């Protein structure tokens, strides 16, 4: 179990959130490439996030390199009341080792990986999901959170 790297980032309303704010709580911190990417996969058409159910078990915080303004617009457009943190210089994304080379049609570029971390009330990363496949992700987190909470 390693300590979760600290962060101090603005949410969509401009309010600062730091890791310490979540001390004593379970936290699901997830990194995603970009706001405003609703779309369809074979399995589902969605925002690729099913945060509402998880919020019953833990605080849920999303981080991307989008600006505060982009997060604000995104959450207004889709009536989201989730906390979305803005990490424009991707320093927190990097601290969580989630800033990675990606490849598309032979071209390489750097971008945010879809990674999720469960952080326990002591501020330790107790579970990480790397290269998240969004389709069953919410169910998986709910199951793991339930188990983790029962043994904490």
């Amino acid at each position: 179990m390693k300590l979760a790297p600290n962060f101090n980032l603005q949410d969509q309303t401009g309010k600062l959130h730091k890791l310490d704010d979540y001390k004593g709580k379970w936290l699901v911190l997830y990194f995603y490439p970009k706001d405003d990417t609703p779309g369809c996969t074979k399995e589902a058409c969605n925002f690729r996030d099913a945060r509402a159910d998880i919020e019953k078990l833990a605080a849920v915080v999303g981080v991307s390199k989008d600006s505060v303004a982009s997060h604000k617009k995104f959450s207004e457009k889709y009536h989201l009341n989730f906390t979305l943190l803005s990490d424009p210089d991707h320093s927190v994304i990097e601290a969580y080792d989630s800033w990675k080379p990606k490849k598309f049609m032979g071209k390489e570029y750097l971008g945010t990986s879809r990674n999720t971390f469960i952080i326990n009330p002591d501020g330790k990363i107790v579970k990480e999901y790397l290269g998240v496949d969004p389709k069953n992700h919410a169910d998986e987190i709910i199951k793991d959170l339930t188990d983790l909470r029962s043994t904490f």
Partner: protein
Amino acid sequence: MQDNEQKTLGRIITLVVFILIIAFGSYVIGFDQGKSSVKSTSNNKNSSQTVTVKSLTPILGSPSAKLLIKEYADYQCPYCSEFNQTILPQLESDYINTNKIKFQFINAPLLGDESVYSAAAAYCANDQGKYWQYHNELYLITSQKNGDESHPVLNKGIFSQANLESYASTVGLNMNLFDQCLNSSKYVSTVVNEATAATQAGVNGTPYFIIGNQPYEGLPSYSILQSLIQAQL
């Protein structure tokens, strides 16, 4: 009669899919791959067998326009329909009609049989020079009929053969030629190959854009799209 035609079309699709399964071994054309198909391909011993297929859709805009935007999309996908209904018209008036960009729609029929049927039907309309009219009609239908965006009605007959014919008649296609094209399943294997090629290229969901050299996954807002375009003009 319609049922028989539907069955024939279904059988042909099944046959084509079967052939592809044989051709690609365990890599079942990406339909059942939840993970990135780029990853799946690279983990697969048959990864050298990349499917390439040329899209038959007409490019929108001037061939000499500096920037090309490609959209990988599915006719059943409500977010693709939202793009077509709300964002593409703005793109046309601001960038396409002013010869700054050209736009290409590429089939990525990932959502099931009716995605394949509808894309093949659009190619039949293209044979009659009415690709965009038919394309717009299909997306109009998707926006009207397939329910809540996050829970669309998929593969339940909105794009059945009978309905595809009725939409063709709405846009004034020659119905004899259209039926002939549909019944012969002329474009089904092309479209199935396009689905394979799209997933192999890393398209896991639709819409998926390549703006110049910049990939963008999902439905962008117009302002995001504009900033991606402006950065490359």
